[in-house]
């Protein structure tokens, strides 16, 4: 099979409008004859479900939480980008596009990113119209701030809870359609497989998490909006429930997986304190607008700080190394996430890490408090500071915060073409679930943008084209493919329930996380990845022999839910290792130790690796087949990223 990204012809700036005109339309009276399944109700899922229902389609929406309002998009803190140029600082669609392509280390698809930048302006208008309470200036106009990887202020925000407010906006649009009867909402339902007929997606199999009922649902198309898979690392900033199951099962049914090893490591998280920890908490990147990152200049001072004989505020100005400001004067503390993360890691490796574990650097607000006053700092970041106090029992108004990189977002995901279609016709992937817009590194405030862009403004057009082509012939679950897939799911569930070993699935998950972080985290080597592959294969074999799963299917069973997700994470982990092994270059947050410049910066290999890796599942325990989508850059020149 050859990959066709279906990128429209013509100049970059006109591709999307031309494409919209060329796409087939579904007559308004026919829309009600189509049933659409939407899995996941975060920014991408809720916005897609609401918008498609507004257009007249019948939508069935599914989420595993008790309410669509709990989707993990709600936890995004900092903001959402839009090329509005409200600040008169030189922003434009092209600049947002350019920053995103460069920030992604030239591993994203130009046409998709340009469309994202174009649509960004509509997203803000849409959210404002819904009543999303964005931050305002005293004159009543929208306020902006700046994020890593850009030199303009284009980030719209709602205190440190932008994701929450945007999600509640989309949730309210969804609610309106549920009330109108155009969306049927299924909460506490987990998608466990996708049903295909003649190669097209025609439905899904779900488990009702309250009763254990395994049901089938039919539709003309299936949209996966199920988020990312950072929890493969066990410790990440993702919600505990975030998982890869829906996407992974779709992959096993034929959807290619794009760039699985592309993981974003976020530089400003609260450091790990002990083994008991179940997750990591992010401190919004917006903090780097006013917070200054530093480490002690010498190992001796760092040691005193670690032992607690010296306090951070006692370290003299001359003994501090504001390493980001020193190395990247143009961007300073607002360098992109991968650059900031790698530099923090370097400091730690040089023995200059702080905190009890030594795995931390400082994020200091002393200057900002002196300059702006504590009240202003509190108004801007108060909730983030409160959160930090809660978790660490330390006061960042008095002492600098301790931060360290953590896994935050996955740029890899199901491979999709320009229409957001996976390699299974009728199966679409939106938002973080797909691979398309961020390249090898995601800039701040661009995840919310992509989720809403895909849901509000892309899929409503591109899906119509597919639906018009297949026609409104009724699909229902009487086709034998539904029963067959359902039986496969039941067999898998029963296999999990039969595991009565000695180790909890949580213990397997933690072990997987250690392997992934150690060998497939911020720095990777050929040797380490090979070792990791063996470790994961052994872990997988052991899981199916020695895991414990308690309870039955016909009840609320968190143990069973978790077991299924951990089993899928283990399989995905192996694919991530394969992908990382194959990509013998450094790009974005994916740093291959063998590939670096003399200064220790990430060194790409455009000649051999300017492609999207799309992996095809070839059967249980078989090596996956690599397909390549060559990336061509017409509007931006491939160059070494430089933020100095």
């Amino acid at each position: 099979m050859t990959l066709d990204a279906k990128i429209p012809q013509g100049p970059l700036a006109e591709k999307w409008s031309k494409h919209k005109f060329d796409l087939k339309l579904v007559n308004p009276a026919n829309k009600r004859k189509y049933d659409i399944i939407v899995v996941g109700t975060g920014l991408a899922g809720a916005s897609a479900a609401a918008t498609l229902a507004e257009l007249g389609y019948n939508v069935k929406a599914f989420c595993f939480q008790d309410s669509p309002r709990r989707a993990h998009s709600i936890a995004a803190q900092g903001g959402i980008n839009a090329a509005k140029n409200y600040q008169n600082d030189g922003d434009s669609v092209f600049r947002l596009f350019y920053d995103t392509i460069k920030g992604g280390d030239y591993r994203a698809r130009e046409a998709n990113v340009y469309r994202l930048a174009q649509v960004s302006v509509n997203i803000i208008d849409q959210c404002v119209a819904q009543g999303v309470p964005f931050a305002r200036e005293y004159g009543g106009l929208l306020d902006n701030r700046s994020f890593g990887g850009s030199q303009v202020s284009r980030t719209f925000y709602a205190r440190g809870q932008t994701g929450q407010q945007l999600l509640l906006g989309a949730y309210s649009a969804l609610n309106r359609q549920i009330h109108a009867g155009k969306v049927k909402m299924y909460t506490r339902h987990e998608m466990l497989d996708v049903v295909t007929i003649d190669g097209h997606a025609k439905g899904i199999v779900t488990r009702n998490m309250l009763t254990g009922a395994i049901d089938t649902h039919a539709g003309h198309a299936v949209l996966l909006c199920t988020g990312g898979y950072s929890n493969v690392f066990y410790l990440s900033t993702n919600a505990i429930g975030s998982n890869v199951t829906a996407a992974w099962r779709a992959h096993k049914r034929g959807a290619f997986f794009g760039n699985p090893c592309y993981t974003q490591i976020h530089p400003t998280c609260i450091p790990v304190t002990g083994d008991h920890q179940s997750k990591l908490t992010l401190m919004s990147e917006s903090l780097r607008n006013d917070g200054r990152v530093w480490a002690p200049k010498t190992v001796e001072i760092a040691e005193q700080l670690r032992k607690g004989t010296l306090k951070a505020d006692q370290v003299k100005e001359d003994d501090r190394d504001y390493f980001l400001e020193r190395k990247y004067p143009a961007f300073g503390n607002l360098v992109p996430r991968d650059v900031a993360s790698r530099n923090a890691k370097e400091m730690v490796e040089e023995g200059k890490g702080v905190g009890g574990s030594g795995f931390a650097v400082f994020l200091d607000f002393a200057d900002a408090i002196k300059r702006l006053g504590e009240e202003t700092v509190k108004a801007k970041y108060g909730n983030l500071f409160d959160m930090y106090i809660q978790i660490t029992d330390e006061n960042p108004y008095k002492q600098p915060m301790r931060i360290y990189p953590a896994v935050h977002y996955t740029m890899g995901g199901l491979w999709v073409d320009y229409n957001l279609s996976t390699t299974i016709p009728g199966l679409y992937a939106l938002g973080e679930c797909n691979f398309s817009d961020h390249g090898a590194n995601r800039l701040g405030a661009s995840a919310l943008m992509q989720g809403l862009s895909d849901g509000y403004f892309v899929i409503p057009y591109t899906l119509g084209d597919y639906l018009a082509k297949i026609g409104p012939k009724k699909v229902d679950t009487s086709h034998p493919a539904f029963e067959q897939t359902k039986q496969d799911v039941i067999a898998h569930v029963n296999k999990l329930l039969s595991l009565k070993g000695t180790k909890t699935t949580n213990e397997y998950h933690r072990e997987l996380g250690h392997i992934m972080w150690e060998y497939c985290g911020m720095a990777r080597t050929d040797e380490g990845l090979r070792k990791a592959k063996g470790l994961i294969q052994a872990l997988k074999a052991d899981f199916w022999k020695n895991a414990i799963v308690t309870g039955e299917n016909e009840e609320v069973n968190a143990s069973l839910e978790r077991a299924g997700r951990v089993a899928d994470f283990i399989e995905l982990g192996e694919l991530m290792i394969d992908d990382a092994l194959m990509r013998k270059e450094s790009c974005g947050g994916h740093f291959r130790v063998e590939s670096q410049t003399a200064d220790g910066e990430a060194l790409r290999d455009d000649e051999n690796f300017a492609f999207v890796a799309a992996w095809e599942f070839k059967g249980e325990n078989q090596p996956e087949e690599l397909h390549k989508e060559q990336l061509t850059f017409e509007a931006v020149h491939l160059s070494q990223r430089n933020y100095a």
Partner: protein
Amino acid sequence: MSNGNMNLTLKVWRQKNAQTAGKFVSYKAESISPDMSFLEMLDVVNESLTHKGEEPINFDHDCREGICGMCSLYINGHPHGPKRGITTCQLHMRTFHDGETITIEPWRAEAFPIVKDLAVDRSAFDRIQQAGGYVSVNTGGVPDGNAIPIPKVIADEAFNSATCIGCGACVAACKNASAMLFVSAKITQLGLLPQGQPERYRRVQSMVAQMDEEGFGSCTNTGACEAECPKEIKLTNIARMNNDFFSAKLFRQEEIHEQNH
């Protein structure tokens, strides 16, 4: 795996489902670190129960950073535990003392039936929002964001109401299991903003009607909801809601009737 020095006794409500009776069961939580969150402490207990082949304690949780609103424990007589302005997932074990007995119960309200053990069904909240907690705007065709200027103080106040996470602590804290703080937060947010004006009076009527239908009790201004709200939503939201509600009943019936057609 746990690495601390606290030993606690937990009295936990166990209930198979809404149809069966529940009871308190005592468990030991040993070697707990004061740096653990309350939910991480329960994770440790659950790991040890699983090792013994017993069924782990079921509780709702997801983001574990205080924003998704999923966690919901009633700890020593308080929703989300003894500290103000935080959720259960943000509560850390350093709040408790070595040797302490901690009582853990689910939210108690007729409108929140038990799902299992400590988890309850809060879908009534969704149905109230579905009844009218939105601005009726389709995707596309909206004015430029800056075409609707909103004074900063109004935007900030709307934001304060909008921070409700829908966890249900207000209902759990209220002796009448009233949902007025939750409902009024959304009504206030949209009622303050220009975008929310066209449907303002219809919204309050339909949301209040749904709230009553779901079986939530009425408000007696005791203020327990405000005291226990993890997002510190103010009681003044309820005053605004009452104001709009009476205004709608007395002066806006015709307008609302028109809108419903």
